[in-house]
Structures are given as structure tokens and as C-alpha cells.
């Protein structure tokens, strides 16, 4: 589609939507682009909200994907504070919350995911925060500071990043986790153990295997978290990070196949309607390297799918299959994760966790399925290559850090 009369409408101005708009122009698309966002500001990076930005090491300008002038300059009609309310697939129009309606030739859904709320008593008290948007992060930053008491509900990556940033700002931090270990759903046990010890060394307290039953408050503000065992954890603020749910309701109402995410093909195109694409956190997509479909919440995934959809729209060849990856920064630790540990039957640790420089390989037979690398870029980079190539590895060599990753993969 390179017709100047064409119109691509992008619903959702997050990392995926904003990137798709910019890529369309990079790829020479000359038609109209309308980018709809329900937040008041132009697309920005979310990862720093729990890390560099929260610690005051990055400003709003550096968060923005593009300077605001970019959109007008690139002839992208960016509309903040508006959401899409309905899609009429037969008429190829999308209705907006401001009462207007837009006709599209291609529609890209990039509506993202929302934080799952804890449905417990006191959940609406002031000071109970979630972290998805810049506005959420502003609210959180305002409550952190020296001596402030922060309770983090959920020992996942968001929770741990907020805990690390909170400590950097001098707050007292306690992390409350339902499972018996941190990162229970997303990381290997040795990594959970490592992170817990590292955070404890930096003064974070953990309550594992505990269930939050409610929040206590005074004058409308939270003062404590109530646990199932009867204890109350005193706090000035709470951050809840217990997962996210895809914003798929718009697609579902329009009759698009959804499975906790809009089901798409290798071009990020809806399997129900060839004129509609879904990208980023809201998409349930095929991942050929694992021969299965799933939904991811990561920036690399958002970028990759923006690339897939815009290549399809502009008639470019489909991008080669990728190895999914993600990263996290906590204190002086750089965690880089390549792949997902699907069907893994063995864990191999390369290096020594005591030195905060090691990698955990998840193997299926002698194939690498996933790598979790702490301050270990070679293991991460070569791991990505091995995951994609499906080349068997020599486990004895892999376990020996004195043999370089290049030699291991040779």
C-alpha cells in the first residue's frame, strides 16, 4: 500500500504504535497516518519509568520516542486524549471517544495492556499505585524519598525494579510476594535466589508466600497492607505489580479472534480480518522458533511487530524470524534474557552467581531454549544466536566459563 490516498489508522500511541507510525514513513509510505492515543502525551518509552526516570536520571524529553514536532513534520496526525470505541469492519471505520469517526484502509491495534488490580478491601485508597503510564510514574515518584515506607505487592520484574529505584531514593522498601520465591512465573530458581540476596544486601525486605487481603488507610490514604496471617505492614505508599491484561475488548467487540490477545499471523495481521493488524502487548502472535503462539510484554516485541505490520502494509519482505529478548536494570546489575524456557528439561549455570556475573541456560536436550544473563553480555548475545540457529551445544564446554562463548558456539 503506497497510494497517497491511503489511510493507516493506528489505535494506541505507546511504544508499538508510535514506532509503527515512524516506520511507515521510514519505509516510504506516502499516505495519511492517524495515531490515536488515550494519554495526554506523545509516545514515550515505558521501561525507564521504573528505572532511570524514577531515580531522576532521565527527563521527559529523553523518555519521548520522538520530539513532538516530529509528528507534524512527518505528516502524522497524532491525536492525544482520544481512544477508539468501536470498529465497523464492514465499513472500515473506527469510532472515537470524541464522537468522530475515521475511515481506514489499514488499522493497526496497539492498545497495549493494563495493570491487573488487586480486588481487595481498601483498593481505592490514595497512595496505592500501579505503574503503566508516565502519569502513574509521576505519582509514584512524588511519594518516594528518604525514609518513606514503600510496600511493593508482587515480586516480579516491575516490583523488583521499583524496589531498587526506591532504595536508590532512600525509601524503606518491603516486597510482598504470594509465591514462595521471587519471579516465580518468569525466572529460574537460582535467579530468584540471586535477586533476593542482592536486594537484601541493598536493604530491601521480603515477605514471601504471603497473601494480601486488604489495605488500611487514614483520611483516604493508605497506611498499611493487611496480610492473610493477620499482620499489617505499615507503609506510606503501595505499588502493585501483579501482572497485566491485554486491552483486547475493542477487537473482541468487533468480532476479531482473541485468545488473551488479538490472534495474528506472521505479518501481525489479524487472522479474522486482513485489513487489521495487532502489535505489541495486545497481540497473541506466532513465534516460529518455539513453534507456538503466545503474547509478550516487552519493548523488543513491540518493535518487532511494528516492523512486521509496517513491512506488510508497505509491501516489504517479512522481517526474518527473531529471538525474543528483554532486559532489566537493578542496582549495578544488567539482566538480559534471551528466549523463553519452553519445554526446557535442564538448567545449566555458567559462571558463579556469587560474583554477580553469570548466566543460566535453559536447555531442551542439547538445544538452548533460553538464557538469563546477569552482567554477562557474551552469554546473552551468543545465547540469542544459539536459540535461533537451533544448533546443539556441547554442555561440558558451555558449563566451563574458561571456554569463550564464541568457541562454545563454534
Amino acid at each position, binding site marked *: 500500500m503506497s497510494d497517497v490516498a491511503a489511510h493507516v489508522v493506528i489505535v494506541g500511541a505507546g511504544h508499538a504504535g508510535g514506532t509503527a507510525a*515512524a516506520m511507515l*514513513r*521510514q519505509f516510504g509510505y506516502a499516505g495519511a497516518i492517524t495515531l490515536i492515543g488515550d494519554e495526554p502525551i506523545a509516545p514515550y*518509552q515505558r*521501561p*525507564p519509568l521504573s528505572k532511570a526516570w524514577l531515580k531522576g536520571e532521565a527527563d521527559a524529553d*529523553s523518555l*519521548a*520516542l*520522538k*520530539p513532538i514536532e*516530529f509528528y507534524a513534520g*512527518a505528516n502524522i496526525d497524532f491525536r492525544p486524549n482520544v481512544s477508539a470505541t468501536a470498529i465497523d469492519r464492514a465499513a472500515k471505520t473506527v469510532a472515537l471517544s470524541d464522537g468522530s469517526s475515521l475511515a481506514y484502509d489499514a488499522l493497526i491495534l496497539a492498545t497495549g495492556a493494563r495493570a491487573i488490580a488487586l480486588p481487595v478491601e481498601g483498593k481505592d485508597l490514595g497512595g496505592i499505585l500501579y505503574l503503566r503510564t508516565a502519569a502513574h510514574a509521576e505519582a509514584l515518584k512524588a511519594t518516594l524519598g528518604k525514609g518513606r515506607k514503600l510496600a511493593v505487592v508482587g515480586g516480579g520484574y516491575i516490583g523488583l525494579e521499583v524496589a531498587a529505584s526506591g532504595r536508590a531514593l532512600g525509601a524503606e522498601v518491603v516486597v510482598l510476594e504470594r509465591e514462595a520465591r521471587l519471579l516465580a512465573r518468569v525466572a529460574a530458581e537460582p535467579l530468584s535466589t540471586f535477586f533476593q540476596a542482592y536486594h537484601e544486601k541493598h536493604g530491601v525486605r521480603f515477605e514471601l508466600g504471603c497473601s494480601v487481603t486488604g489495605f488500611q488507610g487514614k483520611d483516604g490514604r493508605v497506611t498499611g497492607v493487611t496480610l492473610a496471617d493477620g499482620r499489617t505492614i505499615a507503609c506510606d505508599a503501595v505499588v502493585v505489580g501483579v501482572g497485566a491484561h491485554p486491552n483486547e475488548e475493542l477487537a473482541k467487540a468487533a468480532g476479531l479472534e482473541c485468545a488473551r490477545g488479538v490472534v495474528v499471523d506472521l505479518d501481525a495481521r489479524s487472522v479474522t480480518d486482513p485489513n487489521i493488524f495487532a502489535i505489541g502487548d495486545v497481540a497473541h502472535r506466532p513465534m516460529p522458533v518455539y513453534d507456538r503462539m503466545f503474547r509478550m510484554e516487552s*519493548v*523488543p516485541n513491540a*518493535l518487532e511487530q511494528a516492523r512486521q505490520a509496517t513491512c506488510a502494509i508497505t509491501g516489504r519482505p517479512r522481517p*526474518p524470524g*527473531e529471538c525474543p*529478548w528483554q*532486559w532489566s*536494570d537493578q542496582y549495578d546489575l*544488567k539482566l*538480559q534474557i534471551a528466549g523463553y524456557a519452553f519445554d526446557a528439561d535442564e538448567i545449566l549455570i555458567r559462571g558463579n552467581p556469587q560474583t554477580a556475573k553469570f548466566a543460566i541456560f535453559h536447555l531442551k536436550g542439547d538445544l538452548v531454549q533460553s538464557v538469563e544473563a546477569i552482567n554477562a*553480555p*557474551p552469554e546473552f*548475545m*551468543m545465547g540469542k*544466536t544459539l536459540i535461533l540457529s537451533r544448533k546443539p551445544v556441547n554442555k561440558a564446554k558451555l558449563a566451563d566459563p574458561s571456554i569463550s562463548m564464541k568457541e562454545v558456539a563454534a
Partner: protein
Amino acid sequence: MAKITYIQHDGTEHVIDVKTGLSVMEGAVKNNIPGIDADCGGACACATCHVYVKDEWLEKTGTRSAMEESMLDFAEGVEANSRLACQIKVTDALEGLVVTMPESQH
């Protein structure tokens, strides 16, 4: 502010005024210059902002950090003048800097 010339692998040149304090990567990405992907947004986690720094600028752009060195070691087409653009901070001293891009960042 420094005027930086970004040259794509196909020879296309982009001359951009980049604000002091931004990185050479941010200068490219914020101006939608193709060829620098910067998937991680500058966290030195992905090696997709690989550039070649013209030799006469190598001294002024500084040296690679250990993390950068380690990431670059696994990028495609690495040369002695390879850098990760996210790790080069723009200062007035970089007025006139020229960087070229590799064929692919992946």
C-alpha cells in the same frame, strides 16, 4: 548543540543538529533516521545502534566501556572504529562528527 552527519549504509547522508547531553543514538532515533534501531532505548543491552566513527573523531568520542566492548564483540561487521551510538554523549566538541552505519543491526 553539535552538527552530526549520519551516513546510512547505502550512502544516504543526514545532517542533524543534536542537542548537547543527548547520545549520538538519540540524535538519530529522535529524527527518525533509518539504520540505527536502538531496540533497548540506550540501556547498552542490545547492540542495535552500532556505528563506525570516522577515524579523526575516535579520540573525541572516547573509549568503549567494558559493557559496550562486550556487546560489540558479538555484533555483525565490527571494526576497530565501531561504537555503540548510545554510549557516545554529544558535546560541543563533537561539532562536525561523522558516523556511518553497518549494513544491518541484527
